[in-house]
C-alpha cells in the first residue's frame, strides 16, 4: 500500500476521533478498576443499557441521544450506588475477593443482557441524529460529525473528570482511597462513601458512552461483550489510577486500529491492539503512565 499524505493524515484523524469514543467507553473502567480496584466487568453492559435508553428516548420523544444521556445520568448514578452497595456488603467488607467479585460482575453482565433481550428483542438498533450523515471536509481531511460530536463531548467529559479528580478535595480522596484508606479515615473522610460515589460516577459515564455508541454503530443486547477486552486493554495500557492514562490508552488503540486498517489490513487490528497490550504488560506491567 502506497503511503500518501492524504491517507496518513486521514488515518491519524480517524484514529483520534475513534480514540475519543474509546476514551468515553473506558473512562468508567479507568475509575472503577484503575482507582477503586473494582473489577467491574459488567461496565460494557451498562454502556449498552445506556444505548437502549437513548434509543427509546429518541424513538418516543425524538430527543438527541447525547442530550438524553446527560439528562438521565443521575439515574445511572443511582444505579451505580445500588450496585456498589451490593458489592460492598457482599465482598469489599471482607477484603481480598477479586475473583468472586469478578464472577459477581459477570452475573450482572448476563442479567443486564437478558433484561435487554426480553424488553427490546435481539434486533440491531441504530439512531439517526440530525448530524449523523453530515461530514465536514477540510482540504482532503474528512470530519464525519457522527464521530466528531461524540469525540468532542467525550473529550469534554474526560477532561472534566480529569480536573475533577486532580483538583478537588473529593477527587483527590478518590485517588487516595485505594492507596491508604486508613489515612483518609483519619482525615475525617469515610472511604466507603468516597468509593461509592466514585463508582456511581463511573456508571454515569457508561450511560453517556452508551449514547455515543448508538450514534456511532448499530447496537444489540450482547454487544457489550465485544468491549470487555477493549476497555480493560485501554485502561491497563495507559496506566491505572489516572484519567490521563485512560486517554493515552484510548489514543494508542484508536490510532493503532486506524493505521492497521488503512495500511495493513483491518483483519489484523485486534491482534495489533491486544499484542500491544501483551507487550505493555510484559515490559511495563503498570502501564505507560502507571503509578
Amino acid at each position: 500500500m502506497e503511503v500518501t499524505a492524504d491517507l496518513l493524515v486521514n488515518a491519524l484523524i480517524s484514529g483520534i476521533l475513534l480514540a475519543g469514543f474509546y476514551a468515553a467507553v473506558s473512562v468508567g473502567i479507568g475509575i472503577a478498576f484503575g482507582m477503586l480496584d473494582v473489577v467491574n466487568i459488567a461496565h460494557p453492559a451498562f454502556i449498552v443499557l445506556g444505548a437502549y435508553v437513548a434509543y427509546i428516548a429518541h424513538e418516543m420523544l425524538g430527543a438527541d441521544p447525547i442530550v438524553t444521556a446527560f439528562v438521565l445520568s443521575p439515574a445511572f448514578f443511582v444505579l451505580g450506588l445500588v450496585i456498589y452497595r451490593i458489592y460492598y456488603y457482599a465482598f469489599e467488607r471482607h477484603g481480598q475477593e477479586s475473583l468472586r467479585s469478578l464472577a459477581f460482575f459477570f452475573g450482572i453482565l448476563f442479567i443486564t443482557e437478558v433484561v435487554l433481550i426480553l424488553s427490546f428483542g435481539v434486533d440491531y438498533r441504530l439512531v439517526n441524529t440530525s448530524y449523523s450523515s453530515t461530514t465536514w471536509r477540510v482540504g482532503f481531511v474528512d470530519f464525519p460529525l457522527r464521530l466528531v460530536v461524540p469525540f468532542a463531548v467525550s473529550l469534554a467529559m474526560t477532561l472534566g473528570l480529569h480536573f475533577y479528580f486532580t483538583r478537588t478535595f473529593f477527587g483527590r480522596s478518590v485517588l487516595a482511597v485505594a492507596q491508604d484508606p486508613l489515612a483518609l479515615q483519619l482525615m475525617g473522610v469515610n472511604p466507603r462513601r468516597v468509593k461509592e460515589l466514585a463508582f456511581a460516577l463511573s456508571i454515569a459515564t457508561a450511560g453517556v458512552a452508551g449514547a455515543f455508541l448508538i450514534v456511532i454503530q448499530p447496537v444489540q443486547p450482547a454487544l457489550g461483550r465485544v468491549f470487555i477486552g477493549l476497555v480493560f486493554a485501554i485502561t491497563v495500557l495507559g496506566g491505572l489510577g489516572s484519567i490521563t492514562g485512560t486517554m493515552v490508552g484510548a489514543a494508542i488503540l484508536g490510532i493503532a486500529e486506524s493505521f492497521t486498517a488503512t495500511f495493513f489490513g483491518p483483519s489484523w487490528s485486534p491482534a495489533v491492539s491486544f499484542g500491544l497490550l501483551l507487550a505493555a504488560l510484559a515490559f511495563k506491567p503498570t502501564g505507560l503512565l502507571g503509578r
Partner: protein
Amino acid sequence: MTRKHPRLAAGLHSAVQLATGLLLAAGLASAHAADPLKIGFGMSMTGPLAGNGKAALLAMEIWRDDVNAKGGLLGRKVEFVTYDDQTNPSTVPGIYNKLLDIDKVDIIMSGYGTNVIAPAIPIAMQRKMVLMSLFGTDVNAKFKYDGYFQIMPNGADPSLGLVNGFFEIAAAMKPKAQTVALVGADAEYPHAALEGARRSVKNHKMKIVYDKTYPPNTTDCAPIIRAIQATNPDVVFVASYPPDSACIVRAANEVGLKTKQFGGPMIGLGYAALKTQLGPLLNGMTSWELYVPEPTIKFPFIKEFLAKYQPRAATEKLDPLGFYLPPYAYAQMQIVGEAIQKVGSLDQGKIAKYIHANKFSTVVGDVSFAKNGEWAVGRPLYVQYRGIVGNDLEQWKQPGKAVVVWPASLKSGEHRYPYDQNRK
C-alpha cells in the same frame, strides 16, 4: 417464549427422562395415524443473528397454521418442536439428537445460516433424514449428502451464483470495469462470498486491486474505505453482516467514495431496520436482494404471504417488511409439505427423491433442485436503490425504490453509474 411454544412442560419431562436415565429405544413408539406430525428444528432466537432467526420462525409458523387450516399433512396436524440454537454451532448436536431421540420428530429442518447448518448435516446423514436448510452457503460441498436441500436462490454453484450478477453488471458498464476492490467481514458467509467474487472477477477478466477482510465488530470503517479509495477501483464489492453493513455504508458516504459501482451481497440491507436507519445513504448502491416490490417480480401468493406476515411481525417486533428471509422460510416449508403429501408417507428416501425430481411452485416462484441440493438455476436479484428520502418505512413498499438491474429477465430499470454521481 413459552407463550408461543408450549415446550416447557415437554422439556421438563424430557429432562426428567435424561436425569433418571430412562431411555426408550428409538422407533419403539410408532406413529399413530391421529398423532400430530412433528417437525423439529433449532433456530437462532438469541445471539447475533437472532433477528433473522425469529423472523424465519414466524414465517414457518404461518405456513404451519395455513397447512393445519387445510387439514394438515397426511391427515395429521402439523406441530413444531423448536429450540434456540443461540446462533452457536456447539448447541446443534444436542438439539438435533434431542429432536430425533426424545421428541421423535418426523421431519427436521435447519436453523438459519451455515454455522448451524454444518453441524446438523452429519446427524441428518447418520439418521438418513432429509435436511431442508435455510440459507447456508455451499455447505454440502464437503458432505455431498443427497438428502440435503437449501433454499437460498443462488444456484448450483452457490458462492459464484451469489455474486455473479454483480460482476455482470460491472462488465456491462461502458467502458467495462477493469479494477475491483473486494472487502468483507471475518465470518463464514462473507468469506464464502469473497471466494465466489474472486472467481467471478477472474471469469470477467478484471483485476483485483484490493482484497482484505475486517473484524465484524469494527466501529469505524472509514479507514477501510479510504484504503480502498487509494487503489482507485472501478468497482467496490462488499460482503457483510448487518452491523458492519451499516458501518461500511456510512463510511462510504462520509469519505465520499468515488467509484463506478458499489455494493454487493450485504446482509442486513434487505431488512427494514437498516433500510430505514440508513435511508438516503443507500442511494446509488448496487445491492443483493431476494425480493423487492417491483412490477417485474411476480411470485405467486407473495403478496398474500406478506399480508399475513407484516402485521404479525409488527406486533412481535420483528422485521416489519419481511422481504429477505421470511418468504424463503415459508417456501422451504411449502416444498417439504408438498413432497410429504405427494409421497404419501414420511419415508425420507422417497421424500428426498421426490424433491430432487420435481419442480415446486412456491411464494418465491418456481423452484427445482440440483444434485447438490442447491437451486438448479439461481435467481438472486441485484437492485439499485434510488430516490430514498428520509427514514420512512412505507416508501420501501413502493416500486421504484429498489430497481432490479439484474438479471435481465427481471429488470425493472437500467443500472446508473458512476456510483458517486447517483448518490443523491
